[in-house]
């Protein structure tokens, strides 16, 4: 199996949110609690000795995804062909029924729930339909800084290195998130 994943160059990210907004537009998600792509700001220091970093945070499509294990009805699965973690909303019990077990299990809070009653889980699917057409995920194509990439994780690591941690991101050896970084050093 080829495991698909993300690359994120944290040294380039300006925290502009183009990825997050492009994602909402492409997947037609209203403003509100559902954010398949999130951008976190990590600030350190006291004036005038500061540093700040940003972290683009989609679903990292773990090799051992905790959400899959947590789901009581097997609504979340890992595709055999490419390791992309997908959710079957027909099977999903909804967040009132199951009390967001998948979200609670995910260290990066990738599972998302809308404001509607008993909302079904949704999350980043790495733009499956675009990948199938040979296109990059919309966030990758949106980034004005060319700070994002997606593809087979081994190829990403060969191209960009295999740093597994970054500001605001701790690796989990247990879950094996499919991501590699160019992390931003805290000291400027």
């Amino acid at each position: 199996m080829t495991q698909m994943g993300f690359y994120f160059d944290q040294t380039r990210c300006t925290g502009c949110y183009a990825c997050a907004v492009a994602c909402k537009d492409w997947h037609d998600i209203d403003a509100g609690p559902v954010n398949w792509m999130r951008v976190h700001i990590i600030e350190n220091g006291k004036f005038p000795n500061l540093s700040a970093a940003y972290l683009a945070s989609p679903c990292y499509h773990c090799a051992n995804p905790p959400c899959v294990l947590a789901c009581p009805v097997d609504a979340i699965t890992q595709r055999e062909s490419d390791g992309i973690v997908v959710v079957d909303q027909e099977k999903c019990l909804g967040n009132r029924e199951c009390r967001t077990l998948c979200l609670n299990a995910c260290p990066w809070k990738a599972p998302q729930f809308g404001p509607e009653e008993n909302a079904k889980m949704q999350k980043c699917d790495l733009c499956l339909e675009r990948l199938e057409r040979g296109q990059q995920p919309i966030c990758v194509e949106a980034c004005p800084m060319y700070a994002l990439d997606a593809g087979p994780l081994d190829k990403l690591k060969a191209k960009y290195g295999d740093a597994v941690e970054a500001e605001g991101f701790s690796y989990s050896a247990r879950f094996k998130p499919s991501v590699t970084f160019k992390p931003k050093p805290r000291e400027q």
Partner: protein
Amino acid sequence: MTEKKPISSDDDVTIVPTGCCHDCGGRCVLKAHVKDGKIIRLETDNGEEPQIRACLRGRAYRQRVYSPDRLKYPLRRTGERGQGQFERISWDEALDIVASELVRIKETYGNSAILLAGGTGNQGMLHGVNPVGLMLLHFGGFTRTWGAASYEGALFASMATYGTISTGNTRDDLLNSRLIIMWGWNPANTIQDPGTSLHLAQAREKGIKIVAVDPRYTDSAATFAHQWIPIRPGTDTAMLIAMAYVIIVENLQDQAFIDKHTVGFDKYKDYVLGKEDGIAKTPQWAEAITTVPAEVIANLTREYATTKPAALIAGWGPARAAMGEQYCRAANVLTAMTGNIGIHGGYASGFMRAYSSRETRGPHGSGNPVEEGAPPRKDSLYKLRGGTNPNSARIHSAKIFDAILRGRAGGYPADIKMAYVVATNYINQNPNTRRGVEAFKSLEFIVVHEQLMTPTAKFGDIVLPVNTFMERSDIAPPWLGSPYYIYLNKAIDSLYESKSDLEICRELSKRLGIPQTLGDETEDELLRAIAATRGDIPDYEAMKRDGVLKIKTPEPIVSFKQQVEDPENNPFPTLSGKVEIYCEHLAEMNNPTIPPIPNYISHWENYDDPLVTKYPLQLLTTHYKTRAHSTWHNVPWMRELEPHSVWINTADAEARSIKDGDLVDVYNERGRIRIPAKVTERIMPGVINVSQGAWYEPDEKGVDHGGCANVLTNDEQSPGGAVPMNTALVQVELAPQG
């Protein structure tokens, strides 16, 4: 440029290449996916490099087009001005009213009573203010303003020093620098031409040192800079002059460049060394003013003067202030003293236009009958061409509300009776909004072209619904001048009853008895004709098909290369033919606040104004990443990201018992706004920031809950024309409970 693959598998989806054309620092490619006459999603440039990728604003545009707040049909005001009560009327009725009011005002008061309150909210060539201006010219003229809020200080300084606004280099040339100083410059948020941030990141990756001088630790400082130097607002000029001092006393200047290409260095030297006024402009002198340690100033100076080529990029923000012209003059002069002009990797600063796809160099005439025969303003650089029109019939934009209220009796050139408002949120985006409210209430008639019910549109007597750029075709030149054009193909039909500005003006022209003014050609025919007048659009059809024309240049564009390489045959376009450290044109003004050499001159509402005892905080009103001025304010995808707030340093917040997220009042004599506090280390103590562009939303007591920064700004002009958006003293306190 062709698509590699069809972007959607849906056979009934058409991809229309267009682009963003509001007044941001970009102008980017958008590809609208249209299905059944509706835009269902957007892509940006995925074609040949360099791609012109849209920012978050462009990506959110679908929500602006389909906003439930879009104006759907012509409206007539039924309530008081500003209340927002309207009734629907027909286009015929609306246009009849506008035409008859135009005629009445003209016949009663003359054309000068008509103010064209035209803004930059649309950057296409066919629409926005352009057709309205043309129509009103043929109708006998109108009164207009000078003094661009954005850049007048930088422009004035650019003209005085270089005689031109074409002083920039294309961004790819940043990679040729060995040191980049981002002074009051935050392209991560303001874009400053697409690709600027990418080139800064690449420069850093190449090992080029980058320094940020800014009262805020901006996204640009955080991402690109190796060193951040916080500086007190309103004092940048002092630090730049102290840098000149260090260069002079340590003999670090490029004397050969100075001798060959500049005039007036000795006079500047006298001022800097204190021979003129007895005050040596040492780094210690500047430290007391700027709060920047003397050692930091001296070290930065040594690095800048000895690391060649180096790019000192003086952003427009610090010039958007009282005496803002002096800051840009001082920066320009520093680039000359170090010989960083006309060479790859250097930077002349100035106005910073790089590729002249929209520069005009014609005579000053405007063809406006209202302005005919009026002498040039005495504070203008009227002997030069290519800068601000010096006609004294124009009113400075910061003074326009006062001019409306006081007219000729107040010393202004016109008694304004009506405002024709197009492509602008006028009272929101000019200084002293509440005075603007007063002014707009005093007018006899106001017509507004708008897409949404803005705070300004609420003052319209007639409000005409305008379509968005997705609903019409146009050509948009780039912003500061990267070498490309965007062709905006109409993606969908006009929504509701909206029309384009051009269509509206054609209809009105017929009613005004000037039917031929705007012709009857199609947008395509007009754009084809515009393209034919340009030397750099070889293939109109290809540009239209692709939605973009990227012009290849053999190497990065560097302003003044010819002037520096072959000065005999290429003088600088100043009166002396040289870079004017000392500007005789300024000397002739005989105005101590517009001196012939750059001076640090303190001013009202600076940190040392006695008013600080009452209003101890300096206000910045910077650009915000989720808006282009006031456009995008009410787009939900934008509003949920880093919501509008006042930035306040932790120490200043603690002293006021303010916690992050608390609702606070920011106020001075001009007004009061109530918004959440963002308590942060990323702004220096003593300074707060309320990003401009949020919509004015007053309650019955006049407190603005929208957080419009211009409720607090001062409607004074700087002597050289800068609009002092970053010069205001305020106080902050917890909002009253309950």
